């Protein structure tokens, strides 16, 4: 598997993706919740296409900048420039935040969500997922020993991975271009008050 994870993917997964919540929150502030997810995905696409990714000193700040630029472009295209959203001011937030603390909380919550999503899978699907991802049993062996075909093993894994992806992020992370369901946005807006509320805004200069 690791052969398909290029160095840039590793960097993207380890340095860029852990701050997904911060990106989304910031994108919502800049462009509204309707457009936020799409803007984040577009920023991701720009970041993962970088040739000189290794030179990026602060991947999180870089991604935030990309989100900001995309947000500004869209606002210009829409000929509406609501400066009251405080785009320039918000840019400084990137530096002010405590990225590590936020990312740690996110990682912990993600593990909880992944665990819950796996636990909620149908029994055979869950069994296959646990055997592959926790017991590290090769797909061929799972197939042989459960008396099912490799393609059935794959189907279970696809189903399980989709469930975990959906649990980890807004569905827009999975199917590009689709709108995040309201329900999820509301849950996140209301449910993650405490640690997710973000640091107090500070104006530098």
């Amino acid at each position, binding site marked *: 598997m690791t052969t398909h994870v290029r160095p840039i993917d590793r960097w993207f997964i380890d340095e860029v993706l852990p701050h997904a919540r911060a990106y989304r929150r910031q994108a919502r502030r800049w462009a509204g919740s309707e457009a936020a997810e799409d803007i984040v995905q577009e920023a991701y696409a720009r970041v993962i296409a970088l040739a000189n990714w290794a030179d990026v000193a602060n991947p999180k700040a870089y991604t935030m900048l990309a989100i900001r630029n995309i947000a500004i472009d869209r606002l210009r295209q829409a000929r509406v420039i609501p400066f009251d959203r405080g785009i320039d001011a918000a840019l400084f937030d990137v530096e002010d935040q405590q990225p590590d603390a936020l990312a740690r909380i996110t990682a912990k919550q993600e593990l909880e969500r992944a665990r819950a999503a*796996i636990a909620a899978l149908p029994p055979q699907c869950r069994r296959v997922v646990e055997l592959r991802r926790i017991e590290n049993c090769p797909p061929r062996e799972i197939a042989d020993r459960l008396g099912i075909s490799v393609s059935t093993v794959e189907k279970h894994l696809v189903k399980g991975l989709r469930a975990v992806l959906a649990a980890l992020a807004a569905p827009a992370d999975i199917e590009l271009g689709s709108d995040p369901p309201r329900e999820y946005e509301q849950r996140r807006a209301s449910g993650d008050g405490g640690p997710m509320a973000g640091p107090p805004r500070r104006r530098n200069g």
Partner: protein
Amino acid sequence: MAVQWLVRLDAGTADARAFEVWRRDPRHAVAFAQAQAAWERMAQSASGTEPVRPAAPPASFEARPSRRMLLRAASIALPVLAVGGAAAVLMDRSTAYAATAVGEQRRFSPADGITVELNTDSRIGWRQSGLGCELWLERGEAALSIESRDGAAALLHCAGQAMLLAPGSYNARDDGASAALMVIEGRATVRGTATAARPGEAIRLEPGRARLIAASPEAIEAAAAWRRGEIVFNGETLGAALAEYNRYLEHKLVPADPSVAALRIGGRFETARPEAFLGAIESALGLEAVRRESDVLLRRKNLRPG
């Protein structure tokens, strides 16, 4: 798409070139990286648990408390580091053992659909996991019968090799010097290889090596005979025959000299009646048995001179 690509790449069923073409689109690359991140979270969701896949059961069960008794250590848990909520997703890892004393045979069922007949002086361990039954033949000989409604296989470890056993019947033997698994019915596949034995074939097991061989008619007959309490010789040397019969004997039969060991023997004998076997040898081969403290010496009868 990203999820399917990832799962198929993981299973080795994807066209890697087509995947790279697909991934050229940065949005696809992002989706793939996100799927990969979730895939990694799945493995971490049982945080602190390393995959526990021992090649052999723990060696801590050295004592053979009571002979002539089926030993079943109910729940010798393998060391598992379970942290937090990880325990909920772990399989049952308890390992049990059964052993037979010299001359003893046992038949039992370690798991649903699996029957084990354990020959003399043998020991086998087993464990149930989410994958079904996993067995370790530590020494001796076992006949395994595997039935399962859904076609699930069992995993047998023997002489350092792991083999997947499809529903069927098998004979596994490891006498220290050599080891082999014979397929009577079903199909045995050496894990991680294409080496697979069909009925009438056997897998010769050597450290780091597994070789497919044809099972001789004698070997096939012998595998069936011991389960009836019989042992069959077809012109083997007495040395080889005694070694075989001695597996069932506390007091071993020892040829007095190489010329005695080179004699040939044929016939069907009962493993539980050594006296009858001894009597047959004495009369057929002109030998006499001399009982000594810890074994029985077989020598040519002293013909009175003149």
